[in-house]
C-alpha cells in the first residue's frame, strides 16, 4: 500500500490515500464486463466474506486482509491481480492512487 501511495503522491503532490474512495471503487458498477460488472460480483458486498467466482462458481477466499491475512503481502501477486482484474472489470489499468485507496479500504475500512 505504501508503495502505491508513494507513487501516487509523486504523480499528484498532496495525495492522501482514502478508504472512502477505495470503498466507492470497490462497489462501483463499471458494467464493462457483463458477468463481472463490479468487484462485488465475485468478492461480495463485504470483502471480509468468502466470495464466489461469477463464471466458474469456485469459492474465493475473503479479499480483506482482516479475514485473510495473506492478502496484499506479496507485491508481485498484488500487482498481477490488479493488472488482470482492473483491465477486465474497470476496463482500463488502475492508477497507483486507486490501488492505494483500494487496499486502505480493505485493510482499515472506510
Amino acid at each position, binding site marked *: 500500500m505504501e508503495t502505491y501511495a508513494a507513487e501516487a503522491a509523486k504523480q499528484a503532490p498532496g495525495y492522501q490515500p482514502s478508504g472512502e474512495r477505495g470503498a466507492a471503487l470497490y462497489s462501483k458498477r463499471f458494467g464493462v464486463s457483463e458477468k*463481472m460488472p463490479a468487484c462485488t460480483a465475485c468478492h461480495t458486498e463485504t470483502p471480509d466474506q468468502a466470495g464466489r467466482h461469477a*463464471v*466458474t462458481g469456485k469459492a474465493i477466499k475473503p479479499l480483506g486482509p482482516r479475514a485473510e491475512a495473506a492478502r496484499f503481502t506479496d507485491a508481485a501477486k498484488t500487482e498481477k491481480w490488479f493488472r488482470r*482484474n482492473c*483491465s*477486465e472489470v474497470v476496463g482500463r489499468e488502475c492508477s497507483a492512487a486507486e490501488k492505494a485507496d483500494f487496499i486502505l479500504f480493505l485493510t482499515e475500512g472506510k
Partner: protein
Amino acid sequence: MMKKILVWDLPVRLGHWLMAGGFALAWATGDSESWRLVHVFAGGTVTTVALFRLVWGVLGSKHARFASFVRGPRQALEYLKSLLRFSPQHYTGHNPAGGLAVMALLLLALASGASGWLTYQEMGGEWLEELHEFATGLMLAVVFVHIAGVLVGSLAHWENLPRAMITGFKRGEPGEAISGQRRFAAVLLIGWAVASAWWLAQ
C-alpha cells in the same frame, strides 16, 4: 521414385490442429476471468490430445510412432547442418530436428496442463501457477521455433509442409506410405479429448 504418398494418419493431423487451436485459444484467454472456463477447456484439450499422442506414438501408424522419428541431438544437428549446406537430408516423416520439437511440445503441454489444472483446483501453491506460466511461455517459444522450422523446411525441400499436415500427403517412396487413415482412432481421439477436457473444466 518419389511420389505423393499418405504419411500422416488422421489422428496425427486432427491431434495437431486440435493442439494448435487449443493452444492459441488458451493463450488468448489466459489472463481473463470471464473466459476462465474457455481457457481451462482449451488448455484441457491440448493436454488430453498430448496424452492421446503418447499412446499413438506407440500404437499409431509408421510415421506417427516415436521409434520412427525420435532421434538424438546429434542427428538433429546433422540435419540442420545439411540445411545450411543447401543439400537437406530428406525424411519422409519428421526430420530429427522436427522430432525434437514434437517431443518438447508434448512434454511442455503435459507440464503446462498438469500445473494449470492443479492451480485451477487450488491444489498445491503459488509455485504451480509459476510453473504453469513458465511452461506455457516456453511452449510458445518452441511453437515459434517449430513454425520457423516448418517454413525453412518447406522452402528447403520445396514442399508445402503445413498442407501435408492437413491432407496427410507428402513426397516419398511408395514403400514408405502408410496403409490407411486410421479413422476409428480419430473418432476415439475426438471423443476422448472433448469428454476429458470437459470433465477437467468442471
